[in-house]
């Protein structure tokens, strides 16, 4: 039995246990321990990230003469360790008070536990796939597992889950078409067989493969224009579920793209594939799609008034950075894109958990109905603060490193427009996450939240642990970058030479140890001045002014509604809802067609159709 078999077994056992005992809140810690076992098993495969031989799975099947086999490589491991970590954190978060609360509120805890357990276990299957058939099997399993998780909430979540399903099946069918096309070209589902004939393929065939694969997998990533399902589906899932989905679920799309577009077709092929009459090549097209995926959803996030939706929209936008980095493909950019997968998972899970913690205490995620909670939930505030610094891509958190690598590569590669897009996205993120922090934690506390307390330890522990990772991997990004060099080698990309603090380059590298050191030294100086000044006065939270208006303590004031009124006055008219319109038109057109189809069966004389088709058929025969 290999470690991969063990991992599969452990994850299957977790799902079984969740299905059998998940109903009882007291099963939470035991299930968390099982997720811990999964995480340990993944950790034992750690040598993969430093160049060890792939870990195969013992089961291998043959169906219709095609073999299916599985193995873990460095690429699989990188995604698996994030998956296992996110699942562990989510399970931990719901293992105690949250799970009890959820069950008391009428939630189906067993279903939620089972759905959560199914997700990592199917992902481990997908991440081990080494041919088109096993890839497709894993892909579908993962899609359906996240569908179950989205359904767990019931209510409005069901509507979003169903919308997700349509997109997901559409994407899966594109993948299937690519897989069958590859089979038609090579007579086999092996990646190697396709890779061998790639040099002989015509540009048209290659384009078909690129479009089908990136479109199919892009649906899961929420790439434009297939992004409309994601925010709602992730946001309306019960808290720990959103944390898991937001952390890793949609990155499976990136994994599959890396495996097929980069691992099989190869970056060189993408670079050689130019779009007629334009200066763009296929990989730049992907980068441009990524750029739009960064900018538009990020600014959509800015307009959200529900904290969960705001985060979910950012999740779509951040996926754009990952694809942009990987699509540019050089050592810096691809390392940045890949590292962003890790970084995003850590801070996004922490952020979703922080917001869920707020919902747990206050009952709402509405950004217009919160405020001033910093005095009541200081640790949750800290987690959210660390998380948004990471999400915005500012030092000293890990999000800064991955984005820096991408910016730097875009400048090196002479892509000023993409660079601007990336920076504009970051700007939008900063503006928007400030709104998140401000509306929940700053300002004056609302009367109804006077008695709110910090959340219990079972919820705080995973949040704080994730925050710690966000900070530590920001301080010493080399820890993660080391793994990525192996992944880059596996995918045939240029390999980065990282240091513990970042990268060294003759023309100016990045050493986060120095950056963070100087940052904290600055804080130290500030603290010294503060302490030496000696004239401090503690001000009560309600003892302040707003915009020149004097407010008494009876009037609680927190400016949250119509946040950024000035900015919206400028850019508000730019929001057109074009993609929503596009989606609605597709649905309307389908409905119209369906009406016509149903009309066929509503005729009084169905024999008329028989006559008609006979005449047509005979006419066709004669012609």
């Amino acid at each position, binding site marked *: 039995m290999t470690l991969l078999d063990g991992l599969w077994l452990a994850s299957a056992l977790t799902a079984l246990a969740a299905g059998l005992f998940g109903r009882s809140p007291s099963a939470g810690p035991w299930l968390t321990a099982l997720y811990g076992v999964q995480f340990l098993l993944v950790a034992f495969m750690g040598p993969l990230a430093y160049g060890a031989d792939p870990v195969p799975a013992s089961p291998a099947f043959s169906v219709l003469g095609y073999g299916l086999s599985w193995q873990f490589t460095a690429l699989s491991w990188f995604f698996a360790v994030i998956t296992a970590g996110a699942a562990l954190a989510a399970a931990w978060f719901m293992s105690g008070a949250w799970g009890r609360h959820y069950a008391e509120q009428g939630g189906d805890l067993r279903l939620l536990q089972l759905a959560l357990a199914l997700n990592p276990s199917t992902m481990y299957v997908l991440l081990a796939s080494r041919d088109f058939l096993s890839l497709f099997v894993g892909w579908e399993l993962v899609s359906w597992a996240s569908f179950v998780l989205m359904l767990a909430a019931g209510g409005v979540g069901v509507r979003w889950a169903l919308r997700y399903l349509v997109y997901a*099946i559409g994407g899966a069918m594109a993948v299937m*078409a690519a897989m069958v096309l590859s089979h038609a070209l090579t007579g086999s589902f092996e990646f190697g067989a396709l890779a061998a004939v790639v040099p002989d393929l015509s540009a048209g065939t290659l384009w078909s493969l690129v479009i089908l694969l990136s479109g199919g997998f892009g649906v899961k990533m929420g790439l434009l224009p297939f992004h409309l399902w994601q925010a709602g589906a992730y946001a309306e899932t019960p808290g720990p579920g959103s944390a898991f989905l937001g952390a890793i679920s949609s990155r499976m799309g990136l994994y599959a793209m890396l495996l097929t577009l980069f691992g099989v077709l190869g970056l060189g092929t993408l670079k050689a594939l130019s779009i007629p009459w334009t200066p763009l090549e296929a990989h730049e097209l992907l980068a441009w799609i990524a750029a739009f995926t960064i900018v538009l959803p990020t600014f959509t996030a800015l307009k959200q008034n529900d904290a969960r939706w705001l985060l979910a929209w950012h999740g779509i936008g951040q996926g754009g950075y990952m694809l942009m980095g990987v699509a540019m493909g050089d050592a810096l950019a691809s390392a940045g894109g890949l590292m962003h997968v890790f970084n995003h998972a850590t801070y996004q899970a922490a952020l979703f958990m922080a917001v869920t913690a707020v919902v747990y205490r206050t009952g709402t995620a509405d950004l217009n109905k919160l405020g001033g909670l910093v005095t009541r939930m200081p640790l949750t505030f800290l987690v959210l603060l660390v998380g948004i610094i990471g999400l915005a891509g500012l030092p000293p958190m890990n999000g800064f490193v991955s984005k820096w690598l991408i910016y730097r590569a875009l400048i090196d590669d002479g892509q000023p427009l993409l660079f601007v897009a990336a920076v504009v996205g970051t700007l939008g993120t900063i503006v928007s996450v400030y709104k998140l922090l401000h509306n929940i934690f700053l300002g004056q506390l609302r009367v109804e939240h006077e008695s709110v307390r910090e959340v219990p330890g079972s919820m705080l522990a995973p949040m704080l642990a994730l925050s710690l990772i966000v900070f530590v991997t920001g301080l010493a990004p080399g820890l993660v970058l080391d793994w990525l060099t192996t992944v880059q080698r596996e995918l045939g990309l240029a390999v980065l030479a990282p240091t513990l603090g970042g990268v060294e380059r003759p023309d100016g590298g990045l050493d986060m140890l120095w950056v963070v050191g100087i940052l904290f030294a600055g804080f130290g100086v500030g603290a010294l001045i503060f302490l030496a000044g000696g004239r401090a006065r503690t001000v009560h939270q309600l003892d302040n002014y707003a915009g020149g208006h004097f407010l008494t303590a009876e009037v609680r004031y927190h400016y949250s509604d119509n946040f950024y009124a000035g900015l919206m006055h400028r850019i508000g008219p730019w929001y057109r809802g074009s993609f929503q319109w596009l989606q609605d038109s597709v649905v309307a057109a389908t409905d119209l067609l369906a009406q016509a189809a149903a009309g066929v069966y509503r005729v009084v004389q169905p024999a008329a159709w028989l006559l008609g088709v006979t005449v047509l058929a005979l006419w066709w025969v004669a012609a």
Partner: protein
Amino acid sequence: MNFVVLAVALPLLAGFLTPALGRSSRALAQWLGWGTLAVCIGVLWVAWARLDGGTVAIAIGGFRPPLGIVFYLDAVALLFGLAVPLMALLLWPREGTPQQFALTLVLTASATGLALSGDIFNLYVFYELTAAASFGLIAGRGTGAAQGAALRYLLLSAAGSVLLLAGITIVYLRTGTLNLAHLATLAPERLQDPVGLAAFALMLIGLGVKGELFPVNGWVPEVYGSVSGRLAGLLAGLVSKLAVLVVVRILVLIFPQPEAAQLMLVLGMLGIVAGELAAWRARDLRRQFAFSSIGQLGIVFVAFSVPGEAGIVAGLAVALHHLLVKPALFLLAERWGGSIEGLRGAGRGHWLASGLFILFALSLVGLPPLPGFWAKLLTVMGLMGLGTGLAWLGALTVMAATVVEAAYLFRTLSVLLAREAGYTSPGPHRGLDLVTASLAGLVLVGSVFALHPLGDGLKAMAAQAADVQGYIRTVLGDRAVARRGQREDRISEAHPASRGSDRPMGRADRAYGWPAGSPTRGARS
């Protein structure tokens, strides 16, 4: 192997005895029916075992083909033949009258005949008999809706039969024979022209009425929406497949021209689009399943339109999968009939039924490794392997239909499992319905663990069904094969593009020496 005839003769005989017997004892009539079906299953099972993968032709009454009428037994014929009494037993109208028992038995006899017959004349007779039995069964429920539906079916079916007969007439005028094997030897010479194609078109549309071919399936939603789940399952699951099987036999043996397959592909595609989209809009659960059945049959037609073994493998896979899944779904819909919105929360508490529904829906949509996925994959592979634009469009249609299918099946499921209270359930499913559906579910899940042998079995079956020479050799002997080969040489010289060039060449042989150009002086003239 002549005892196989019993599988057709016995239920027919029992069918005529049952009404008389039912007058004195309904229970006895029922037991007679069950016993007969059990014997049929036994007979076909023994035949299956003895055949052991080979093929056999049975000359009825000892008249040798092409003069006599024949039963042709190969794996496909026996598989579908075996499915007939088995499904009739599983979907037996338990609460019906002795008349309905009788009609079910007649349906069994004629459907078995459709699976086994080796000549078009017999096929036509059995086809008509199937239709007659179906009318009776549909109208037998006695409700106004059922009678209206039966009338609709009757009209369409009768018109279809006329077309079928017209097609058969053309074939007979051209060749002078109705024996399929004999036709297979003569077809390359005498039916490879527009008139032959017209004959195929007429037969396709005629048989298509029962095979739920677009657009001659106007009866489907009315009938399945108004009859009992068991009967709907029998008609949608079984009878439709047998009509398709006949079409496939004719296509493979007599009409290898690409245009014939193209016609089937186009109508199949339209059927997929119309069926799935109409199902998407359907607001009644049984009608939704009926439309879904039209869509699935569309996929069956599309799959079988792929020439050669690949098409038959895919078509068989889709057909068998649907044969398993749709009757079970109709059984589940027995308690959940009517408007879908009215079923809000109906599935909660009925976890076995809901679980089965989920399983079948997942398999229909094609979640690997469930069998529905492999069927769909084989279909798409067959189509895309052809490389023509039309075939690509067909593959695209099948895949787009999957999206629509997922949308409506899971929308329905979300309604069934919604957490709102307020639904007053009409009680749980009848035990037997659930057991039958569970059986289908078990077979479905079990087949996941036997994918490898099943795939091999299916391939062998398809290879046998696609082997035209084998068919001719089995029925007429070796010399006829050589004769066809020699004829095809002449044809392929004249039409190099026509299919069939993969068949071996042979010397001229005058075993059945008809002088060329005198088509009417055939075996039956």
